[in-house]
């Protein structure tokens, strides 16, 4: 291995050593929790992605050990590499919080409020972003921009009006498939994703553009309007596919496979690309070997009580302490007051309806 020097970087008062060449965003992801800036366009698996949505803007309050001057503007953390001794402010900088509020407002400006009929609802990055970083209302009073609907083939549904121009699908189409049939037309607020010459996309891996899309602009036509994602149960499964890794996630309701997607990690990024065959045609549990329930973030609406192995659990109070320098504000800490609801007990592991006895036995057992 070649020697890459380690750089010390401090993000929101938390220090970490990362290899040189790491971006601020990836360094923050190594720390995890709330200090990680949101990213709508950056995708670690797609080369050249990032820098466009501006939601990951952070303040660099100290450039490096050698040159301690702060950077004059907020920088896109996904495209800025760390320097030794760099100090970054994310949620501790009022400037960043304010700018991010503005960005969310801009992104939502022309985004239709059709979440109730959008297949992406429930697993939409923009929903999460606006919930966490946005304002409660928009100040936009004009007609929203819309696009003519375009048919791009039997498997993928393109709903351009919902697009936030992250360019992820363009990079995915370019980097995963051999032919480029997917690009951008027009410019400014009328720029749109389109396929060249209205060609149907028939590439082997083109279905992955559905997974990389942060909003409901690209959705699975075979799943269209069939179900809400939070009513289906995700399980990890694999098959012996010759074209791709075969590692996928099935979205079940009962025994029925409603949808197949790639597996996503805790940052909402695909772990292994899957081919169109696995995604659109293997719609039966017989085609798959089921490994077990998928890990779904505790905060996600999909995790409505029925899954184990939650990832991305609530940040520990110690972390918040270090960041904001004070105790986290909590209206009522149920766990400390009540001994009944034990967070370590997974409701899914209890046979049948939960009874207070289920908790009693554990409580008593723990005390002994």
């Amino acid at each position, binding site marked *: 291995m070649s020697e890459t020097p380690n750089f010390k970087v401090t993000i929101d008062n938390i220090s970490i050593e990362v290899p040189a060449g790491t971006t601020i965003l990836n360094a923050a992801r190594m720390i995890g929790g709330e200090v990680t800036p949101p990213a709508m366009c950056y995708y670690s698996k797609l080369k050249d992605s*990032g*820098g*466009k*949505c*501006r939601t990951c*803007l952070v303040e660099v309050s100290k450039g490096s050990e050698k040159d301690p001057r702060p950077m004059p*503007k*907020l920088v*896109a953390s996904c*495209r800025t590499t760390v320097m030794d001794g760099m100090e970054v402010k994310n949620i501790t900088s009022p400037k960043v919080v*304010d*700018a991010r509020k*503005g*960005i969310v*407002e*801009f*992104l939502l*400006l*022309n985004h239709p409020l059709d979440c109730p009929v959008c297949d992406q609802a429930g697993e939409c990055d923009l929903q999460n972003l606006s919930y966490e970083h946005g304002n409660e209302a928009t*100040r*936009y009073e*004009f007609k929203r*921009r819309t696009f003519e609907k375009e048919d791009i083939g039997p498997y993928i549904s393109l709903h351009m009006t919902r697009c*936030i*121009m992250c*360019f992820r699908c363009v990079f995915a189409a370019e980097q995963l498939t051999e032919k480029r049939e997917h*690009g*951008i037309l*027009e*410019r*400014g*607020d*009328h*720029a749109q994703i389109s396929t060249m010459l209205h060609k149907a996309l028939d590439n082997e891996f083109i279905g992955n553009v559905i997974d990389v899309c942060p909003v409901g602009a690209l959705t699975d036509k075979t799943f269209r309007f069939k179900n809400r994602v939070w009513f289906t149960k995700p399980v990890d499964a694999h098959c012996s596919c010759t074209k791709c890794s075969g590692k996928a996630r099935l979205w079940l309701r009962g025994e029925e496979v409603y949808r197949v997607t790639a597996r996503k990690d805790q940052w909402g990024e695909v772990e292994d690309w899957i081919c169109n065959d696995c995604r659109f045609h293997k719609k039966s549990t017989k085609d798959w070997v089921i490994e077990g329930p998928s890990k779904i973030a505790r905060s996600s609406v999909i995790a409505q009580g029925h899954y184990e192995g939650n990832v991305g659990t609530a940040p520990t109070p110690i972390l918040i302490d270090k960041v904001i320098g004070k105790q986290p504000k909590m209206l009522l800490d149920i766990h400390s007051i009540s001994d009944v609801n034990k967070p370590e007990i997974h409701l899914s592991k209890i046979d049948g309806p939960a009874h207070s006895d289920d908790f009693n036995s554990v409580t008593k057992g723990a005390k002994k």
Partner: protein
Amino acid sequence: MAIKLLLENDHIEGIRYFDTYRKNGGYRAAEKAFKMSPADIVEEVKKSGLRGRGGAGFPTGMKWSFLAKPEGVPRHLVCNADESEPGTFKDRYLMEFHPHLFIEGLLISSFALGSNATYVYIRGEYAWIPEILEQAIIEAKNNGFLGKNILGTGFDCEIYVHRGAGAYICGEETALIESLEGKRGNPRMKPPFPAIQGVWMRPTVVNNVETLAAVVPIINMGGDEYAKIGVGKSTGTKLLSVCGNINKPGVYEIDMTCSVEEFLYSDEYCGGIPKGRKLKACIPGGSSVPIVPANLLLKTAKGETRYMNYESLSDGGFVSGSMMGSGGFIVLDDAQCVVRHTMTLARFYNHESCGQCSPCREGTGWMYKILKNLEYGKGKMSDIDLLWDIQRRIEGNTICPLGDAAAWPVAAAIRHFRDEFEWHVLNPEESQTRNYGLAHYADPIHVPASA
């Protein structure tokens, strides 16, 4: 009489042809430069204090010295002739009437930077100029100033003229590079800067037309002599393209020591405002720079005379000053409406946003819609604050400076002309029939006595 360097031979008929240009001392600088080493030329340009004439005013010599010089990798000089800033047309004049001066500047700069293939990215709307330039290139080639083994030095240089397709954004250097490579003209993320990875990932210098033309007099008279012209860090001469409500619109060369008042009212330059009207406001450096009212244009907030140079025009920052920018001097008289003017600019930036990053893509359209409401008497008082908030959140948060360029005019208009905006809100019907007029915008500003 002011010093003229670029337009020195402007009166000579046929100066656009090689023979006439050569007879009047043309390509003398090239001959001189080819006897120098490239490093010495860069040193001369550094000494001259020449600043980029495209708008940002970055020292050219410094930019040149940043150019990476890895072994075996070709380097390129790209000339930014995509002059699309509303109000700016100085490069057009230079290329149309003094193509050989421009080619000579390109040649010397190419030699200094070691660029064997030099590109001129010209604005698509300048449809007739590529022919003029190409003719000049052929003439220069026939006389041994371009092509292989120039003047027996062994240095090869080809100049290619590339036409843009009419996008303002391609005047941004990285978008220009993308467009030159045949891609969609979206600005690149920086770093890496073009000096490290530019055209085809090779080290590249992108300079404005006027900057490169100014290299010719620098070599002719020497960097030190050139630095004596002008004042402070504003050395040399600057071309200004003047338009709007003035008697003599056109391109003028100034030596940066004349005051704004002299420039505006003297017969040598703009010749005053026609029809006996009064000066209301001015944009001194192309549409992107902040607009200033008459009272802040002629005198700074400190009560000092404002001069036509980089420092004096930006005196007081954006609170009470503006910028030299690209030299597009736009004058508004008391019959003009600042709200309408701001709306027009907002429409331009909305139309020209590339759509890559969200603040500019969404924000410019929003600002235009609000300004349209205000202009047509449908605005609300809260709209003015909203506009301020939008521009604040666009500025500095975008990939390229177009976001700033879209935000600054709106910010400056609200900062200095807020009562005109309010008048539009309070008098929706009257505002459709008459303009707010001069109001107090030319009144002297009270300057507190300093200790």
